[in-house]
Each structure stands twice: as C-alpha cells, then as structure tokens.
C-alpha cells in the first residue's frame, strides 16, 4: 500500500534544462514532470523511501516534441447511410487536406444561399447539428470530397479532373445541398454543379433532404468524376448501355465509399455474418429516398438477380444489370479471399481490401473502354485484361466472366460453374473457360440496350491528368502564421498554391 502521507517525500529534483537543438520550447513537458512529482508516491519513489539502493539514477523524461507543422485537415459529421438508417447514424470523419470556409477546397465548393460560406471552428473543424443548413453543407462537402479522394487513391494518387478542367481551367465543382423543392438530385456539366433537392411527403413531419444521403451524394459525385474521365459518355448517340454504365458507376461509388470505411465494413460483416448476399445496408441504395417512393429495400438494390432481358432501356433500370454483376463479383472475391485469409485477417479488413481492389480494377477498365458508345462487354473485357496484367488470381476472372454471362451481358462458352455449384473456392486457378483471354462477345448485339439511341447532345474533349505536386512548405508556413499570429489569411490565398498546381496539371 502506498499513500502520500506514509512516507517522506523525496525532494523535488532540480529541473534540468534540455538543450534542444531545434529551439523548441518544452516548457509544458517540464511542467508535466514537476506535476508528476507532486503526485502521491509512485513505485520508484517508494523504493527510494524504503532505503533500497538504486542501481542508477532515474533519467529525466525525454521530451517528445510536438509534431510540427500541425497536420492539415478538418473533421466533419457525415451520415453513414442516411437518416432512415438509424442504426448507423452519423459519425465523425477526418478529411486530411486543407478545407477553408465554405466548406471549400481547391476542387469542391458548397453553396447554400443564406448559409454558405459556413465557417470552420477554431480547430478547423466543421461540426454542426444534423438538422441544420450548416450540417447539410458540411455533410455534402465531406462526402463529395471523400468520393473524389477515394477514386484518386485507387489511381495511385493521380488527380482526376472535372470535365471542364481543360486548358488550365481550375473551376471547382459546386455542391448545392438544398437547391430547391423537388424529389431529385443531378449532376450538371454546364452548371459545374451537383444539385440536391428536398421534398416533403404528404403527412410527413419534415422534409426529406437528398443531400443527407451518403448514397445520393456519392452517386452524383460519381457522375461528375466519370464525366471527367470519359466526357464522351454523356454525349450524343450513345447507346443505353453507356448511360447504364454512368448510372451504375454512381451507385457503385456509394458502395465502394461505404466499404472504404472500416466501421461500415465491420458493421456489414456483423450484420451479414460475412455473407454479402444477406439483406444489408450496403446493397440498398438511397434507402430513405426509396422508402419515400415505395421501395423499402432501397431505390435500387445492388444485390439483385436481374438479367438484360428483364429490364427496359431506361438508363437507371439497365444500370442495375451492371451494378448487380459487380456486386456479385465483390461478394465472390470476398468469399474467396475470406477463406484464403481466414487465419490471418479480420473479415472486415479483407472486405475493405477487396472493395478497394475491385474499385481500382473497375475504374481502370472504365478508363480503357471506348471513349464513346461503350458497352458493358467492352468494360468486362477490359476488367479481364487489367486483372490479368496485375496478376490477380485466375479465379477473379472466372467470377467476372460468369457473373456477366449469368446476366446475359456476355455470351457463354460452356455451362457456368456458378450456376452448377461446382466452383472450388480454395483454388486460385479455378477456371471455367478454355482460355484466360479478354475476348468475350456480347450475348446479344441486337439487344435494344446496344442498338437503341439515347440521342443526348453535345460533348467536349476529355483529358487525363498527371499527378501534381502541391507546395506543402508554403501552405504550412501560411497555416503556421495563421495559427500563431491570428492573422487572417484570405481563403483564396490559402488555396492559391494548390490551384496553381492544378492549373499546371489541367493543361
């Protein structure tokens, strides 16, 4: 038993001056050590008080310098799915890049008349109550930013330009969280905008804000990102399948974004016992919006069994074929990897990694697909090609082929192993095709989704952007000045270096 009164205190050791070459002030650390001495006797002092000889004097604590400069970034509250998915609710996220009042950064702005720019707090965070215009601005910005960052990361950090970022143009994409009253949300290239509307169902106590759905915000962000990569896909005379790819990419952006968050992956594993074909929030897209229009399993559901012959040419409807196949492939690869890594990794981590891998594979395939008139079979063949190039296990390509064959997208070469239940989930080289080639053909080239026309108008040139380097040193210096001296640096000046870097990138 040790108490402060049972033993005489040892004298307070003299405070030693730490000759720190960096010149940092460790006053707080010294203070901390003094404070510690004033506490009740610790084990070392008790030993000393009891007359037990020390082998050697206790060295003074080594001060740990504070990291400097202060890391960039802000915290936001986001809805994990949407307000109707109450079990998940909201969570705090950290956006590890410079965000100024708006919220705004070098790529994304937020606009809400009478509310924006929303100011960050003294810690640089955007933390607001859920049911407020400020909270909607913060949530919307954060989800758009996370979606863009996710796709840039799977491309190895390469900046993804918006469709209008050509010839040095660095105009941002502006998100309008409360753009008006109607049951809709859209991406407009002409307005360089994502618009999220709100509406009130008859008898409902409060409006439904589409901006509060992670799925809807990620979906619209996905459109803007894909338009930056394949600007010809929203152009004139594309077949319905090209529009379907756009819509599917939006829904898949929401799925991959949820999978990129460990807590969501963990919740999904617990909810489904690691079987992605169990009912779950990941596959259900835009739950609250869906419920409002009478679809309790989500406006669309990625875990569907639809085939090409069962849907119309409307782009959202036909998109469910592609989304469903990719979701099945996700579940298949996850199942294979979960078995393979069962003794070495938590399933939630395996799921996150599989999600990231498939996201990268899909994005690469989409980029390589034709610049106009892309069909599902084009993307499937590119997925096979990329998968082989990056030395994925052959069973991945079996899943890709079989899932799209089951949905009547590509022609079958032989009875499908998945349909017959003969897949060997432990065999990395499991194949059901004769050759491991990317030469699949469409199951039906006369299908209306291939031959039909969308008659959309106009398109402009697209571009691919090399990675850019931001002048971090300058930015850090400005932030330091802001923090230390309380000098207000205009937000535009804070972003100036990053914007200049983008100008060089968006040639």
């Amino acid at each position, binding site marked *: 038993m040790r108490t402060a009164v049972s033993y005489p205190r040892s004298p307070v050791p003299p405070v030693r001056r730490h000759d720190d070459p960096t010149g940092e002030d460790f006053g707080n650390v010294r203070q901390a050590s003094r404070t510690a001495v004033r506490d009740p006797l610790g084990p070392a002092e008790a030993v000393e008080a009891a007359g037990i000889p020390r082998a050697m004097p206790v060295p003074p604590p080594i001060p740990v310098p504070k990291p400097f400069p202060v890391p960039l970034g802000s915290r936001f509250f986001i809805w994990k799915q949407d307000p109707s998915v109450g079990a998940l609710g909201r969570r705090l996220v950290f956006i590890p890049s410079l965000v100024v009042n708006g919220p705004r950064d070098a790529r994304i702005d937020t606009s809400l008349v009478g509310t924006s720019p929303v100011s960050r707090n003294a810690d640089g965070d955007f933390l607001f109550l859920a049911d407020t215009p400020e909270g909607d601005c913060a949530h919307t910005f954060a989800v758009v930013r996370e979606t863009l960052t996710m796709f840039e990361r799977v491309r190895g950090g390469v900046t993804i330009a918006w469709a209008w970022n050509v010839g040095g143009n660095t105009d941002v994409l502006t998100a309008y969280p409360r*753009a*008006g*009253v*109607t*049951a*809709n*949300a*859209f*991406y*407009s*290239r*002409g*307005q360089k905008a994502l*618009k999220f*509307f709100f509406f009130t169902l008859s008898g409902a106590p409060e409006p439904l804000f*589409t901006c509060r759905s992670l799925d*809807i915000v990620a*979906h*619209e962000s996905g*459109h803007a990102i894909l*338009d930056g990569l394949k600007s010809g896909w*929203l*152009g004139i005379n594309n077949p319905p399948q090209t529009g379907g790819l*756009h*819509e599917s990419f*939006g829904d898949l952006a929401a799925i991959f974004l949820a999978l990129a968050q460990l807590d969501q992956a963990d919740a999904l594993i617990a909810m489904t016992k690691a079987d992605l074909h169990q009912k779950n929030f990941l596959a259900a897209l*835009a739950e609250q*919006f869906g419920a409002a*229009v009478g679809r309790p399993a989500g*406006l*669309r559901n990625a875990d569907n069994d639809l085939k090409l012959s069962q849907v*119309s040419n*409307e*782009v*959202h*409807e036909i998109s469910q074929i592609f989304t469903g196949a990719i979701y099945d492939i996700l579940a298949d690869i996850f199942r294979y990897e979960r078995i393979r890594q069962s003794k070495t990794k938590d399933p939630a981590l395996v799921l996150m990694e599989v999600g990231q891998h498939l996201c990268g594979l899909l994005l690469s395939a989409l980029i390589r697909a034709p610049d106009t008139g892309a069909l599902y079979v084009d993307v499937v063949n590119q997925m096979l090609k990329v998968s082989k190039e990056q030395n994925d296990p052959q069973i991945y390509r079996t899943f890709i082929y079989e899932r799209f064959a089951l949905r009547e997208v590509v022609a079958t070469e032989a009875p499908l192993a998945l349909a017959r239940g003969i897949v060997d989930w432990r065999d990395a080289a499991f194949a059901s095709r004769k050759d491991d080639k990317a030469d699949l053909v469409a199951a039906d080239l006369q299908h209306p989704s291939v031959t039909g026309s*969308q*008659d*959309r*108008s*106009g*398109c402009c040139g697209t571009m691919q952007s090399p990675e850019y380097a931001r002048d971090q040193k300058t930015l850090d210096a400005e932030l330091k000045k802001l923090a230390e001296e309380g000098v207000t640096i205009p937000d535009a000046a804070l972003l100036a270096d990053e914007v200049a870097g983008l100008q060089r990138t968006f040639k």
Partner: protein
Amino acid sequence: MIIRVTRSGGFGGGEEKLGALDTGKLDGSAVARIKDLVGELERLAARDQAIGADLFRYDVDIEDDQGARRHLVLIHEGDPGVPLPEPLAQLLAALEGRR
C-alpha cells in the same frame, strides 16, 4: 398527326407517359398551333442541350398523317427554378388539356 410524350430520368429513374395528342380531333387553328410547336421543338432538339446525369429526358414521338415517324429528345435538368423550354411547356399543357 399523333404526338406522344414520355418523360424519364431524374435521380429516381423510371418512365412516365405524359400523354398523347391526336390532331385529327382538333380544330384548324389548334392544329396549326401544334404544328408550330412541333417545328419549334425540332429546332430546340437540334441545338446544344444540357449535359449531365440524372436529368429529365423528354421523348417526343410524332407520327404524321402519312404514317412517317419522327423522334425528338429534349433534356431538362429538372431544377424547379428553371422553367421548361416554352414550346415543350406549351405542348405539355396541350396534352394536359386533352386528358
């Protein structure tokens, strides 16, 4: 002349048949007005239209008295603050009046 209009798209997707109009059942001045509207819609459809995703798409199918068919597509962003192009709004009003 028979005119059919369908709206599709928006975030939720789906198709909605907005109605059909048979000019054979209209008087002479109304027929002339509808023909003018169709001409304006054709010019409108030939111009650059909004580009984006989850916008509203209006498919206008026109079958003339000789059985020849034309198909026009008009895109509207669906922003409630931006009115529909006037010829389209007038055509929809005419359809509404026939219901």
